[in-house]
């Protein structure tokens, strides 16, 4: 109940920001919303289910390209591309999840890392050029507000993203708080024991992977709409690493964590790049290591701990 209230307050604040923020800030806030969704996907599979993915940037890329191709080549309305993206990414996620079954944490990390490194090259390949536009990429038109609402395209896109985020976060929150969430954590903490309680661990892990790919894919779709452009070099291995960093800093096994993580990876580069182009990377790296040592549960986890320190009410 408390969490729902907090969620509602956050959404209300977010919506009102649409009308006060400058153009640039609005763009940043939209980015936060999108990254939050992307990291939420990663949180589901890595934080709650214990499968380490260093390649979620690939699903983000797929989502972005699906939207870009459908809108530019087939005139599909932008909002209709989201479900298609979801399905495509879920399917790919399921397939990626399959070999992941036999592999322990490290091997999966390695495979997804390889996926992330190979993605830009794949996107540039001649055979796919007809659809992907090769190195040039694809331009995506920004949609105007529907129903003649008195807001500009940037505001509309922002509100749309907030709406999608709110829905996905609410669904995810329900998922992890319920029976499935418990099963996810059971599989993460002790797969053998989970198997013994009747959970088909293999199927479960693949499904979780599929769902997480779906969510991050939707984020990718939104990014294509917001940025207005997709190209292979926007989706390098560093995107996957950035999402991973956001996950760790924000808090890997919480629902609020992805929001903190998204804020971190959106705003930090702006500050840090004033020092040098390379500074964000160094800071990410140092923080990743520091968080592993000091605050493995991320910011959200740390807040949780603080909150729990309040003494329990006397009976």
């Amino acid at each position: 109940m408390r969490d729902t209230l907090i969620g509602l307050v956050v959404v209300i604040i977010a919506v009102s920001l649409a009308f006060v923020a400058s153009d640039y800030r609005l763009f940043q806030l939209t980015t936060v919303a999108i990254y939050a969704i992307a990291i939420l996907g990663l949180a589901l599979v890595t934080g709650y289910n214990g499968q380490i993915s260093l390649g979620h940037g690939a699903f983000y890329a797929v989502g972005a390209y699906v939207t870009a191709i459908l809108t530019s080549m087939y005139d599909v309305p932008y909002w209709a591309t989201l479900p298609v993206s979801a399905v495509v990414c879920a399917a790919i996620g399921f397939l990626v999840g399959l070999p992941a079954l036999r592999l322990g944490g490290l091997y999966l990390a390695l495979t997804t890392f390889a996926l992330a490194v190979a993605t830009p090259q794949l996107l540039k390949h001649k055979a796919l050029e007809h659809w992907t536009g090769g190195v040039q990429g694809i331009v995506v038109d920004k949609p105007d507000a529907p129903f003649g609402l008195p807001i500009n395209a940037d505001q509309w896109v922002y509100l749309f993203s907030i709406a999608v985020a709110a829905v996905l976060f609410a669904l995810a929150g329900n998922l992890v708080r319920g029976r499935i969430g418990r099963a996810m954590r059971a599989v993460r903490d002790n797969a053998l024991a989970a198997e013994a309680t009747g959970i088909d661990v293999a199927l479960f892990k693949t499904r979780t992977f599929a769902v997480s790919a779906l969510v991050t894919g939707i984020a990718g779709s939104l990014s294509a709409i917001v940025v207005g452009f997709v190209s292979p070099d926007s989706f390098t291995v560093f995107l996957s690493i950035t999402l991973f960093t956001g996950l760790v800093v924000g808090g890997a096994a919480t629902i609020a964590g992805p929001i903190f993580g998204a804020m971190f990876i959106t705003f930090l580069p702006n500050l840090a790049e004033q020092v040098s182009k390379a500074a964000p990377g160094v800071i990410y790296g140092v923080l990743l290591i520091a968080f592993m040592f000091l605050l493995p549960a991320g910011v959200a986890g740390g807040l949780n701990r603080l909150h729990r320190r309040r003494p329990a009410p006397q009976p």
Partner: protein
Amino acid sequence: MDGFLHQLLAGIASGGIYASVALALVMIFQATHHVNFAQGEMAMFSTYIALVLIQAGVPYWVAFAITVAVSFVMGAVIQRVLLTPLAGSPVLASVGVFIGLLLIFNSAAGWLFGYTLKQFPTPFDGPPVMGGFVTPHDLGAFVVTLVVLTAVWAFFRFTTLGLAMRAAAYNPSSSRLMGIRVGAMLALGWGLAASIGAIAGMMVAPVVFLDPNMMSGVLLYAFAGALLGGIANPLGAVVGGFAIGIIENLAGAYLVGNELKLTLALVIIVAVLMVKPAGIFGRTIVSRV
């Protein structure tokens, strides 16, 4: 046929480099069951150090030696300071640290040395040799990596210290009972791996030019090679590395085109992990209860 021979020989030359990095990866994996995702970036950073020395006027082989030594220390220090405390932690913690190191080395290189491609000198100059199929650098790099690999093999096979390092990797607690300082062995292993990586970087840079992202492709091929040959098997990793070099070059020329070589590596990784995760030479240790 000419083209084929050329691709084959070039594949063997790059295979030597992948084999070296694969060996470094396997050495660390054997000892700690960690995959060092930062191996490529460390090697790249070492190569920049070499470039700085050379541009400052230091003769090539002296710079080479200094770089190898500095890399050794760098690897040992990282192991002692960052990784020993993480010994019992969950996989996510160590993956986080390795990715963090990857970022730091990559970004620091960009920060300190810039992102423009730089030329890196080779000590092996001159016209193509061996009937015009192979450049002197390819041949030289191949010889260097062969020397390094042989030296490492001999070290582990014939010296007591090498034996102690192997023991510490297989069974740290039993090794301690024999008086082996396991912590020191791990630091040594990391130092060696870092040195090997540095040499690989210095051999690859003249061909692909030096920039902070130089080693990411090499790292991927090395992963594929290590897995193909056997992630817990140094000899397998080396053979796997050479195999990947040849496969990658031939497939790139005749099958999938140069643009899909990384994807091919990914496919090989997935295929190996699905069919035979222990790799071609993966040994199952026989132990009777």
